[in-house]
């Protein structure tokens, strides 16, 4: 919230095209111990990798929303120049996935309005949705978030990477969020490999120009996904 002023001024002083990336992460009780530790480490390394890429540092805007008990906003869209430290997550509670996705979509809408108002160009936003279970929040929130997401994807206004963690991940729900891309299952707890691939993909996008077709590293997906 205190970041709002800084984030608007940032758009004035740094008009580089932005790559908005929102991580929507399951931090429910079942993620306790090893899974949440690996997730924390993966996100930390992701921040490190983006910070060390001089183009991505000034263009990637990372936002983080978690769902564990309640939907929580850990980071608003901001470049890592102004928000350099990765947040730390704790596992607890149920799985309000719909609420979290709605929060992410709201944050994204607001940031897009900021971009338009300031005249800053931006790439098609990415949402990374990771879960190890089934959503058990409000069902109308869930349907609303699925509807909004699919509409944006079909309108070519959003890309989503839906990823299931472990045996209990509900791949069907993930598929409902992603009409164009089949959800993938994470290999074991290979969060680090996933976030390394993500940071490379973000770097690639920030080296291009908005409107370009980006070729994602399909080969690299084998490092972290069960195929």
């Amino acid at each position, binding site marked *: 919230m205190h970041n*709002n002023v*800084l984030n608007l001024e940032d758009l004035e002083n740094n008009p580089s095209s932005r790559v908005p990336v929102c991580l929507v992460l399951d931090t429910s009780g079942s993620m306790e111990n090893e899974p949440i530790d690996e997730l924390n480490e993966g996100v930390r390394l992701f921040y490190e990798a983006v910070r060390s890429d001089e183009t991505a540092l000034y263009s990637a805007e990372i936002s983080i929303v978690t769902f564990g008990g309640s939907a929580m906003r850990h980071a608003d869209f901001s470049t890592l120049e102004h928000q350099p430290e990765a947040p730390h997550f704790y596992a607890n509670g149920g799985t309000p996935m719909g609420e979290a996705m709605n929060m992410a979509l709201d944050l994204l809408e607001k940031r897009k309005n900021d971009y*338009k108002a300031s005249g800053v160009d931006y790439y098609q936003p990415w949402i990374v949705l990771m879960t190890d279970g089934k959503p058990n929040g409000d069902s109308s929130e869930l349907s609303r978030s699925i509807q909004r997401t699919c509409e944006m994807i079909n309108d070519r206004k959003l890309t989503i990477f839906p990823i299931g963690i472990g045996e209990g991940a509900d791949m069907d729900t993930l598929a409902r969020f992603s009409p164009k891309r089949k959800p993938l299952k994470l290999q074991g707890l290979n969060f680090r490999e996933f976030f390394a691939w993500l940071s490379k993909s973000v770097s690639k996008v920030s080296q291009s120009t908005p409107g370009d077709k980006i070729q994602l590293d399909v080969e690299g997906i084998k490092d972290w996904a069960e195929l």
Partner: protein
Amino acid sequence: MKTMLNKRTQTIAPDQKLPVSQVARPGHIMHTENGQSIVLGAQIAGGGEGHVFKTNSPSYVAKVYMPEKTTTHKLAKIKKLIQKGIDFPGICLPKALLYNSKDEFVGYLMKKAEGEKVRSLYTKPLFLKKFPNWKKRDLVELCVTILKKIGYLHKNGIILGDINPDNILVKTPKDIFFVDCDSYQVDGIPCPVGVIPFTPPELQGLDHYNSCLRTVGNENFAVAVLLFSLMVTGQMPYNQKNGATAQQNIINMDFSYPLGEASNKKTPNGPWRFLWSHLPRFLKDAFYNTFNKGGKYSTESSRLSTYDWFKKFNDYLTLLDSGKFGKQDEMSELVYPTRFKKQKGITYVKCPQCREDTDESVIGKFGICLECLRKNRLRHCQKASTPRHTSGYSGTFSRSTSTHVSRSSFNTIREIINWFI
């Protein structure tokens, strides 16, 4: 638009894949057409189409395409570029074709390039880190150097096609390198790539960049955009406050920087208006008339050529180096001015908040300069409108480490405003 395209499109034979049976790696031995051996060293760059390797010859590097991207068009174009026999320091044109141990065409040899991408000049912290001693005259000299190289290529019947901030590397204002030269348009073979901000209005909306041959007139738009982005350092001419997308603004030719009184009032907030104001009038005139609908230089056939721009930038460089421009306002010699250029006949006083020299008549009315007024309003509005909890969610917000303007400093400014009104 369609008829224009038909006029320009020639029948080009379709591109076909060439056989390449192995992926090139460091240590592999390639050879040129006349049998010279080239050993690939470490990989120094990789893109969508291929990789650049060091070679056993320290001043030359090899660009090797990925097997699936090695095609007849590429071979034909590189042959033509080599045949042209042109040479200019800093333009990394193909010098020799490269074949692998199976005698398959894989890429080409070129002179090594060095320096930082022009793109790093666009981000202030990177600019200050990499070129801490540069003044405005260095940026102007950089433009002169770029224009000389582009002019040379145009004179030799080559159109770059993909002028953009990642294709030009800068060591010093006089020492720069053009890379990715294998995509240049030559002798009827089109340039297959481009980026939206550098594409002129008449070519926006093409299905593929290689569907038509570009003219020098088309290219002169890209040249103007590049020059603008170096003068209003880091900005693009068609980014606008509350405007449509940059692409739409290009198509509508809705330029957002003023010439005299003429303005669409959509200049982006931030230091950009200051940078624009410190440019000499003749340069503002040239940019305004290039980027605005109906301007003297706004169409494919009327655009300023690289030579026209070269003359203007040379004059600008002379103005700066002679000290004449700085006499009017010393801030015009800096890369990042922090206030508007001073005009004759106006009395200037220091704004009590930012301490910059401001038109006295404006300070009298509001107590502080307009820029400070705007920033204060922005901060005040942001603080007032941000809720502590997002409704509908039971979450809390994590601690933030950012700083913000405190209430007490705002009260002081209010007092100052009251004093002057």
